[in-house]
């Protein structure tokens, strides 16, 4: 069996299966936990409806740091947006990627010019490298970083770099680069539910709960 055949076949199937299994497992396990509520009495005038609203507000409000922290968190925030938006453009805007989704889910949408996606890919790559360097040189961040952080970065970085190498035909024959690219995506999918990449699903819940708790105590998020 050729490497590309293996990557497009068994490897991708196993990865997708682990991804679906893991994501459902973690979401169900989390959402089926008992909600104990907040034992303390809510601040005067705070109703459950307001708490819920504050939860949704928290999801949106936390997209930008508080004014007091803007200066300190400016690079992390902006750089985070660059590679998150970049990744979204690459994953959902590149024609061959859309075909991958179409094959799986039967739906497709208009694609962006490949050259534009390549340019975004280079920008995203630079942004990811900057994120790693920042994590390594910033003492507090380095202190709280674990294997989970670095490996999650690696499995995100690898598909971008291998995808760019494949599109530029650099380093090896195209079919080898394409196979390595697909295998790197398989690794990403397998790691996704069990590492910090799961924040893609969990960020809304964590921000929402924070918003509810803050409102309960009378603080505006």
């Amino acid at each position: 069996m050729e490497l590309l055949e293996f990557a497009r076949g068994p490897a991708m199937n196993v990865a997708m299966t682990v991804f679906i299994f893991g994501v459902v497992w973690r979401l169900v396990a989390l959402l089926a936990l008992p909600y104990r509520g907040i034992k303390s009495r809510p601040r005067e005038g705070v109703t459950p409806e307001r708490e819920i609203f504050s939860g949704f507000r928290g999801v949106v409000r936390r997209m930008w740091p508080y004014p007091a922290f803007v200066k300190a968190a400016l690079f992390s925030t902006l750089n985070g947006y660059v590679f998150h938006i970049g990744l979204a453009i690459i994953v959902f805007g590149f024609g061959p990627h859309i075909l991958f989704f179409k094959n799986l889910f039967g739906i497709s949408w208009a694609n962006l010019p490949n050259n534009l996606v390549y340019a975004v890919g280079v920008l995203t790559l630079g942004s990811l490298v900057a994120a790693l360097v920042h994590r390594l040189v910033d003492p507090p961040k380095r202190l709280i970083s674990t294997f989970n952080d670095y490996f999650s970065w690696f499995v995100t970085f690898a598909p971008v770099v291998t995808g760019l190498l494949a599109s530029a035909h650099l380093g090896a024959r195209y079919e080898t680069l394409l196979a390595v690219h697909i295998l790197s995506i398989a690794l990403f999918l397998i790691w996704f539910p069990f590492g910090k990449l799961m924040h893609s699903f969990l960020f809304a819940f964590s921000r929402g709960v924070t918003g509810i708790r803050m409102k309960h105590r009378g603080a505006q998020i």
Partner: protein
Amino acid sequence: MSDDAPLGDMLAKRGVSRRAFLKYAAYTASIMALPATSTNVIAQALATAKRQSVIWLSFQECTGCTESLTRSFSPTLEDLIFDFISLDYHHTLQAVSGDAAENARHAAMVENKGKYIVVVDGSVPIKDDGVYSTIAGMTNLDMLNETVKDAFAVVSVGTCAAFGGIPHAKPNPTGAVAISEIIKDKPLINISGCPPIPEAITGTLSYILSFGKIPELDHLGRPKAFFGETIHDRCYRRPFYERGMFAKSFDDEGARNGWCLYELGCKGPVAYNACATLKWNGGTSFPIQSGHGCLGCSEPDFWDMGGFYKPLSTSLDGLGKTAAIAAAAGAVIGTGSALLARRHQENYLKDLADKDEEI
């Protein structure tokens, strides 16, 4: 004129002008990506060379490779190559049959011992002692081994000979294998394609005649001059790929406007061949130019690469039931985890309450 006369004399006698001869040498040098100075080397070498004995063996094949070689258009370079070589054995082209044909093969082997080239098209069945394909009472396997024993080199023409091709496709009932699986002790060149480009066959043979050695090969044993780049690299539709303009069906506006056929399953990005540059039928066209995606026919196992109309970036198998089972399993395990956590939480709270009471 005897076959021992130099080729230059023979061709002159047959009315092939010096100019036509030099044009052929220049063309060969060009398609083999050799420097311009090689033209004279090729011309001189061919002019003084003796006709090269070639034994052409056809095994599990469809004769498409021979059709490709013989049904070429003007300029009839392929006709010219028949002047350069002495085709001593070829099922389709030889007039004789039966014992006379086999005697011709044996005679060529004896007369040109260690010098003749064996060209093979078709794969060789090895299952059940190779009984699935026989010629003159011999299995293909026996005939190949017997003929190649005293050959100078072996040229596997077509994907069947080079990589097993369609007979080798799943489930491969005859145990078909490529020539390279059997012949290990001779120089071997693969000229793959279904069929291969005529110029790739003639150019490679001309190179061997001119330089007395085999050309530079890729990791699959193919001449780099013809198989060094992908169809995609040289495709005239490539700019549409870069712009993200893809035909969605074979008769939509994009297809009519010559947009990229990637979404329709074109295998050009992983197919190494010279179709996009040399083209077919005298440089008229090639499959993509005719509106159909490349099948990747010059690549190993092209028949089993997941479907001709399935884009390269898609997974080979749909998830279907597997996805549903994975989701259901995830939900069951997740619910179990949550129930365990609930019980743990309840026990913990109960312990706390008990301790409070004790205090």
